[in-house]
């Protein structure tokens, strides 16, 4: 990609964001939407600035991110372990298939009442939801990844008498890595959704509960400012995981193509 193209796209994107800002500013100013429901962009930005200059906001961000990080880490570690074990063993795969297929589509929010009963507004109730939701995202990708390993590579490893552990480390892991990282990216996004949901619905401290407090006290601009903040966090998480993907997978065709394109 040429510098011109990238700069042009960047400017176009910036123009798009600016356009959104202008539209959202104009709608309430022109009276098309009541500012009680949708305050102008400038008011939201002021509210965001106000929030960001107070300690309460950053404490809440910290709480949300802590639940997100711990939950994602637990889910990721568990899913990679379980996925590697199941993925490399035909017997385990056969016996766990039905259970996975049944448990995976169960919506994580179904566990909210249970989480409330067990842990109330302790961080563990958030973690229960975050771990449950992101575990499946990662697990499925790990299973795809292990299944996707080129049989020729496995046969090659076999013929060179690599042991099971060596095969896992040198053959299966590298080929499954792109899938694992995709799982991490999906899991990270889902973990954020569930962390904020738990705060919003259960009332655990964090950004979600801040939003709920702002809503029930009628601070509309603050609600929008906080929603925008969650969006920014989501964008940031996505960007970080994507750049990690690019760095770890520089050898992989899909990334090479993406860069060449």
């Amino acid at each position, binding site marked *: 990609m040429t510098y011109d193209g990238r700069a042009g796209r960047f400017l176009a994107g910036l123009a798009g964001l600016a356009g959104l800002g202008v539209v959202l500013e104009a709608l309430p100013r022109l009276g098309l939407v009541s500012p009680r429901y949708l305050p102008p962009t400038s008011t939201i930005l002021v509210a965001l600035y106000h929030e960001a200059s107070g300690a309460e906001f950053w404490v809440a961000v910290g709480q949300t991110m802590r639940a997100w990080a711990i939950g994602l880490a637990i889910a990721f570690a568990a899913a990679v372990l379980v996925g590697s074990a199941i993925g490399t063993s035909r017997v385990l795969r056969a016996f766990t298939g039905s259970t996975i297929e049944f448990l995976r589509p169960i919506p994580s929010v*179904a566990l909210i009442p249970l989480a409330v009963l067990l842990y109330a507004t302790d961080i563990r109730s958030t973690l229960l939801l975050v771990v449950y939701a992101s575990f499946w995202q990662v697990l499925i990708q790990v299973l795809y990844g292990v299944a996707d390993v080129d049989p020729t590579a496995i046969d090659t490893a076999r013929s060179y008498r690599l042991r099971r552990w060596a095969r896992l480390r040198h053959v299966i892991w590298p080929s499954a890595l792109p899938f694992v990282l995709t799982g991490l990216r999906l899991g990270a996004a889902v973990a954020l959704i569930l962390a904020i949901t738990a705060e919003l619905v259960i009332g655990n401290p964090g950004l979600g509960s801040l939003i709920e407090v702002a809503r029930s006290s009628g601070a509309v601009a603050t609600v929008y400012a906080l929603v925008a903040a969650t969006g920014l966090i989501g964008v940031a998480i996505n960007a970080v995981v994507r750049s990690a993907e690019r760095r770890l997978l520089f050898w992989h065709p899909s990334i090479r193509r993406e860069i060449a394109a």
Partner: protein
Amino acid sequence: MTGVVRVVWRVVEILLLPALLVGLWWWVSVRNQSFYLPTPGSIVVKFRSVWFGRRALDDLLPSVVRLLVGYGLAALLGVGLGLLIGASRRLRSVVEPVLEFFRAIPPPVLVPVLILFAGLTDTMKILVIISGCVWPVLLNTVEGVRSVDPVLIETARVFHIHGAARLRHLVLRAASPHIMAGLRQALSIAIILMVISEMFASSNGLGFAIVQFQRSFDIPEMWAGILVLGLLGVVLSALFRLVERRVLRWYTGQRAVSRGADVR
């Protein structure tokens, strides 16, 4: 004979682990006599008495209707806008960051925002589902339209396939693997949002019922509700896979062939 053995073995494979898990649950719940962990038997009893009666009509039906309406509208909107945006490179580069931002907003935070607009109504709940589901469908459709094979595009040009026929026979079909991936993501988001919008503020619905049971400490009823929700998720995802398998039969077939060629 070996055929029969194989079928029996397959049934054992499918049922063994679920049976063990239910057995474990039963054993733990009977030994502990925990208030929060009723026995599987009592949950099944409640499941039948609570969910095969009035609640099926009063709570399950409204939930499912809102879910399907919201999901369907989000799918139409997402695919429609995605086709539009995907067709124009300039438009794409302008709106892409905006779309990425909207997609990154965790959908449940839209509930408080939409309550401002539409109050605690059905419209609000449907709007919540639409506003959460539309992004994955939209972005995946854009990606799908973008990745239509240039040779196929030129083939269509040479043979004068344009307009509605081009959309129907080329763009939609070529983008369908991406579109289906987006719809699959959107389905689980739709269920989550259906439940949350009802937990927040509602007088009926699955989410409302489950929270009500939890607050009044009707624990077996609550577990039965969780079971209903789980079954709903399982059934919808099974239906989705059925549709997906039909729509993408050419795609899976083609992939299987090209993978087979790789192995050879």
